């Protein structure tokens, strides 16, 4: 028996370890983005985010002062100064430096280098001395240095993307637009679908099976093919591009799933309650309002979460039905796509923008997860 108990406990350990690994694997990508959104662009491009907490070695370009600050003595021009003066950054410790872009770390700090009538000295604290037998250029001579830069975390990216009104690529306007799109687009289909679902679940009429089949069929229609015909329709009836259009479109595209989930849930409600109510003389409308609706709350909540996530995260529908040339109706997903196009290498901006767009759905998700799971089950498992 000991033997069996032993394998059991080792199996349990294996299970724990596997789950830890899986969870780590699943969370890892998101954490990477979150960490990156708090780092500066320089830091992101010099070390992986998993090393964010450690200092990094960075190579920098400096210039000496210009020719007008040079002191000439016996045909030798001398330029002195400190690279960190007036640079706005905290002084760093220079470990290596160089004068050619090919070998930017050729010399150690404090070393003196002479070459071709020029001489260089760069000290650890950033002081440099440059002498030349020729007059230096107006802009100063270029040289390089590397230093260990301490890890740096900042709220600056969020500040810039959310609260900087001068940032034309900011997310604040888009954030409110997304909110304006998704809330009505979540509530309206629920109202429409709930009645239809009730009819399909509890009313007998010819063609009911056909309608259910149609709803199930519409679940899988790729909505890309609906875009142009519908946009033309919207223009023809005078809605044009705008919030009204995007609400209507989201309502329609959400309906099959809404009806499907709600009907499946309502069918599962106890038949007695409804038949008793009928016997007591309640009309269908009353049954629906007083019994079905309150009992279906979990399914309603589940669909609401689904639809909210879907409309919040949507790109295609907004692109076609909402975003017009006024520039005031952009949504966050589209802002991110444009950022991917124009600031593809600026991870601090991309990460921040992506995280701003993810914050609300993640909050909704963690707060309402219970309903989401229940509704999913109601919708799919019979």
């Amino acid at each position: 028996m000991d033997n069996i108990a032993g394998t059991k406990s080792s199996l349990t350990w294996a299970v724990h370890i596997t789950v830890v690994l899986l969870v780590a694997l699943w969370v890892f990508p998101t954490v990477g983005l979150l960490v990156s959104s708090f780092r500066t662009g320089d830091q992101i491009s010099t070390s992986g985010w998993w090393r964010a907490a450690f200092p990094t070695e960075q190579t920098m370009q400096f210039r000496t002062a210009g020719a007008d600050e040079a002191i000439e003595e016996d045909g030798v021009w001398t330029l002195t100064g400190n690279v960190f003066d007036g640079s706005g950054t905290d002084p760093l410790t220079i470990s290596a430096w160089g004068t050619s872009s090919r070998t930017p770390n050729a010399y150690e700090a404090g070393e003196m280098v002479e070459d071709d009538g020029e001489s260089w000295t760069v000290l650890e604290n950033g002081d440099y001395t440059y002498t030349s037998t020729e007059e230096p250029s107006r802009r100063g001579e270029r040289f390089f240095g590397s230093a260990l830069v301490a890890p740096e975390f900042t709220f600056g990216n969020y500040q810039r993307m959310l609260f900087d009104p001068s940032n034309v690529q900011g997310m604040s306007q888009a954030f409110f637009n997304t909110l304006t799109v998704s809330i009505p687009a979540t509530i309206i289909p629920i109202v429409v679908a709930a009645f239809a679902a009730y009819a399909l679940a509890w009313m007998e009429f010819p063609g009911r099976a056909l309608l259910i089949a149609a709803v199930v069929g519409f679940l899988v229609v790729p909505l890309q093919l609906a875009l142009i015909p519908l946009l033309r329709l919207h223009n023809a009836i005078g809605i044009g591009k705008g919030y009204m259009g995007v609400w209507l479109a989201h309502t329609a595209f959400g309906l099959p799933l809404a009806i499907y989930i709600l009907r499946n849930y309502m069918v599962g409600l106890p038949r007695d309650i409804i038949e008793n109510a009928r016997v007591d003389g309640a009309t269908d409308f009353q049954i629906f309002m007083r019994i079905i609706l309150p009992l279906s709350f979990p399914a309603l909540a589940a669909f609401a979460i689904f639809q909210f996530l879907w409309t919040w995260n949507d790109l295609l529908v907004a692109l076609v039905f909402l975003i017009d040339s006024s520039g005031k109706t952009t949504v966050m997903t589209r802002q991110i796509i444009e950022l991917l196009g124009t600031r593809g290498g600026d991870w601090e901006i991309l990460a921040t923008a992506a995280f701003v767009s993810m914050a609300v759905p993640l909050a909704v998700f963690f707060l309402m997860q219970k309903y989401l799971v229940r509704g999913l089950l109601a919708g799919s498992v019979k």
Partner: protein
Amino acid sequence: MTRTITARLGAGVAALALMAGTAGAQSLMFPIDEGDFNWDSYHEFADATDLSGQSLTISGPWLSVDQELFESVLAYFEEATGADVSYVGSDSFEQQIVIDVEAGSAPNIGVFPQPGLLNTLANRGLVTPMPEGTEEWIAENYAAGQSWVDLATFEGPEGEEDLYGLFYKADVKSLVWYIPENFEDAGYEIPETMEDLKALTEQIVEDGETPWCIGLGSGGATGWPATDWVEDMVLRTQPPEVYDQWVSHEIPFNDERIVNAISEFGYFLQDDFVAGGSQAVASTDFRDSPQGLFSFPPQCYMHHMASFIPSFFPEGTVVGEDADFFYFPAYEEEDLGQPVLGAGTVFAITDENEAANAFMQFLQTPIAHEIWMAQSGFLTPLTTVNTDLFGDPTLGRMNEILLDATTFRFDGSDLMPGAIGAGAFWTGMVDFAGGASAQEAADEIEDAWAAIDQ
């Protein structure tokens, strides 16, 4: 290690400038009646036009830096007319504009980077012809005016020919960008001929460095930078007549001469010749690609790109000093002169109203060109502007390249039908960069072209 202290400082300065720029949505970049601008043209336009209370919507491909520059021009239009102008830029403008005009919800004016797409829309009657007199104005006031007219003259839905667009903002494409101080450090000279350029390329490789930075990535338009390379190579290996026949599909895309030009581009795509190796070319964004010049040690020494690219150099870069360009040279032995490839954005009226027509008038004033050219990244074929105003001396030098050209040709991919010039050509080039042979890539594009010609 691509960033520098200077870049960081520059970012701060640029952020300030940015703030000033937007805060100045009402204020203007250059105070009216100051400087050598053609303010008379401004006043003349302002006095003749009043659009108070009207609005104008424009959409185009310009984002971030270019968007701010264009908006600085729009501010003068608003100031002059009282109209309310909004501009929206999109990285996938070509798709967005199609969705919008097809559905009838177009902006008033679209800024087309590709005359080919405008051609398609004009055929379908989805854009409005230019107001009367525009044609004559272009012919008279643009250098090589008639060619600019021809480039934007298309058949309408009834088969009649009309002028549908006005070119504003031109680009020279046959340029190679480099960092003078890096060339100095390494002792390289600026090549005068294609033979020299290839020799320099090989020398850099021998020195254990990487000569080129090439990036084809551009979101939905990935692949287009390669079309510029191929067009430049066609112009450097074949007489301009062949180029014209190729663009108008009088010779097939997989003609031997074109395949040869693609292979010429392939020379520069060899693994050791390009930063990151050939596999990185197609996935590197064209806007990130020049960053390789500015890192140290440099990831590359040269970058072939049009005149607008300084907009994407690290902030604070002084063009002409920190970075500079030379003419992408021609083969000495081919004796084809100094061919130059260029392009431009064309403004078209996608939803006509009074303000849209007035804006087209505005674009015909020198001041509309001078405001932008006094800043950065703007060339113009308009001959009546004050060329002393160019924001940096390099712009003036680019204009010289334009003038010195023995052959000037418009970007061919922009003239081909949208499905080719903004589709098959791009994907074909991405495949080519990914390892397909020149013949395969050309065959693939020719198949697509043959299919739509049927």
